[in-house]
């Protein structure tokens, strides 16, 4: 792999925020690490998020993606390194604090309460109220109207804001969660595997919302294990493996094939083929894996030219 890796130190030192032209990033992580007891979940991860840019975090299961976003979203605290928001060093102690700092996360399990109506979910935790003192109550009609309008703006063809959100499809729920984050003034949007459980068409819809959020000037962190989803929308790519960063690239410095090859990990595949061979009896599977290895080697070779 000869894709030019970003020199992380210099990048973080000198690059300017593309929208504000200030020399700080919206978010930046420098050599951040996290361990649970004696288990190291994340080590030495460096990345940056800027306005109007999509930073993709790629990695297989257990690579540390979830730990990384939990740190950014305030669910966990990092043990090592520096985490800066707008150039200011921070350690977030709760999701509320992260929200107040403009960081909103849309989780894999969506953080929606499936039995509750869409509008209640949309405003959950940030309900609009009217009235004073003991008569302070929710402004139900206003919340319903806003929910409807915001979702329409995101292009979500909504049936009825009163229906339980559990009745929506996975893609629609994803979009409600994104629209919610955008409405509440998120500056950074974290999307945890938004396309993982979706079909091809639904994934396309969600990817389009990611671009829409980016065009509205949000910094997006897009977490996925699928380079085919990450590459078309991403501006930067951080690759994680077993809790470590194995690469950090600008889009201009890497191709989809290289990204896939890095993700697939040619060496691992070869190892797998070898193991299967030793076990014996799975000749067709072995052949398949060997073909895969050849493929990966080839794309790696091609990119060298």
């Amino acid at each position, binding site marked *: 792999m000869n894709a030019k890796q970003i020199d992380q130190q210099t990048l973080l030192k000198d690059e300017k925020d593309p929208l504000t032209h200030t020399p700080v990033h919206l978010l930046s992580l420098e050599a951040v690490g996290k361990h649970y007891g004696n288990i190291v979940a994340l080590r030495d991860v460096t990345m940056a998020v800027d306005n109007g840019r999509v930073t993709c975090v790629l990695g297989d299961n257990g690579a540390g993606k979830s730990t990384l976003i939990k740190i950014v*979203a305030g*669910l966990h605290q990092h043990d090592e390194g520096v985490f800066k928001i707008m150039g200011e060093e921070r350690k977030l102690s709760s*999701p*509320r604090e992260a*929200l107040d700092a403009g960081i909103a*996360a849309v*989780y894999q*399990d*969506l*953080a*929606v*309460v*499936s*039995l*509750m109506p869409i509008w*209640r979910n949309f*405003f*959950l*935790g*940030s*309900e609009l*109220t009217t009235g004073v003192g003991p008569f*302070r*109550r*929710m402004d*139900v009609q206003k919340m319903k109207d806003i929910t409807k309008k915001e979702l*329409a703006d995101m*292009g*979500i*063809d*909504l*049936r*009825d804001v009163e229906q*339980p959100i*559990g*009745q929506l499809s996975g893609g629609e729920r994803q979009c409600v969660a994104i629209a919610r984050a955008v409405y509440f003034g998120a500056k950074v949007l974290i999307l945890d595997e938004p396309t993982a459980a979706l079909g091809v068409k639904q994934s396309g819809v969600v990817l*389009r*919302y990611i*671009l*829409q959020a980016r*065009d509205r000037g949000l910094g997006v962190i897009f977490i996925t294990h699928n380079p085919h989803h990450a590459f*078309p*929308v991403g501006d930067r790519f951080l690759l994680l493996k077993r809790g470590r960063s194995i690469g950090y690239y600008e889009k201009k410095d890497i191709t989809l094939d290289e990204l896939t090859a890095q993700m697939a990990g040619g060496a691992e595949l070869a190892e797998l083929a070898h193991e299967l061979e030793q076990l014996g009896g799975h000749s067709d599977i072995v052949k398949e894996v060997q073909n895969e290895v050849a493929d990966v080697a080839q794309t790696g070779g091609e990119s060298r030219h």
Partner: protein
Amino acid sequence: MTQTAVQPTARDERVTRKSPLQKLLGRPEVGALVGAIVLFVFFASVSQTFIQPNAFATVLYGSSTIGIMAVGVSLLMIGGEFDLSTGVAVISSALTASMFSWYFSMNVWVGVLLALVVSLAIGFINGWILMKTKLPSFIVTLATFLMLTGLNLGLTRLIGGGVSSPSISSMDGYQSARAVFSSSVKIGGVDVNNTVFIWIAMVAVASWVLLRTRVGNWIFAVGGDANAARAVGVPVKATKIGLFMAVGFCAWVLGMHNLFAFDAVQSGEGVGNEFLYIIAAVIGGCLLTGGYGSAVGGAIGAFIFGMANKGIVYAQWNPDWFKFFLGLMLLLATIVNLIVKRRAELK
């Protein structure tokens, strides 16, 4: 890749207008409401006395003594927890008020206020331990239930020297407290116990809180999915602890009624009543797993309980059958709830 605007949404042809009947059928308490009507018609047809105003006032009174607690228990259940200590907590509250006032020869109202503090504290401790340990509420409140049962008996004997609290009927403030917690109002020639009005007021307040305030939104959320709620910034711990304290408040109201309806409290009472409150909430459409239900449902559940309890007597049947009825209704109600939940989650 910026052509993100999708077709504008006009009035959607996929949504047919919901008739009021369909809307009603979507409510959590509908199963209980149907059950209550069926039961009412049934008892009205088998017993002449059942529909007479006096008998009905008695049914309402019986319902209110369950219903007052069912308000708190329903909210708690919607918030995803339940409390096994409620039955004895009522007695603890009554004992606190009577023993304190009696031992220090103070105005009864001082004891009443102290009982409120104690009841809220019991609720707080339940909730706090639950949040700290993350144990199931079954275990935590079972422990509280056992401890309170023991404390009720032990302290009453230690301080009063008997199994019931000493009479406080001659003490200062007794009459005024009795007027507040246990008196009756004449409506159309029928004495209606004022617990009925307290009950209705509490259901109204609870419904309003649940459906129209932020806290109500949080209650649904912490019961439906506590992790999701936390992730969007809902104060999960405070909400749940608050719910346990609301249950404590209900226990105080009922405890004060129990105390002033007579003038003494049996220290061993209350055991087993916690299930009646839970049954009322479940019959009323609250999901045992949380996130779904209503305060009105709990009230209807309590009303069903009151009707079955007294109706069997008015129909001059053997009251042995009562428990069978109760069990059957619980089963039917839970099945209805299950169907409702499936319909909401899947489609």
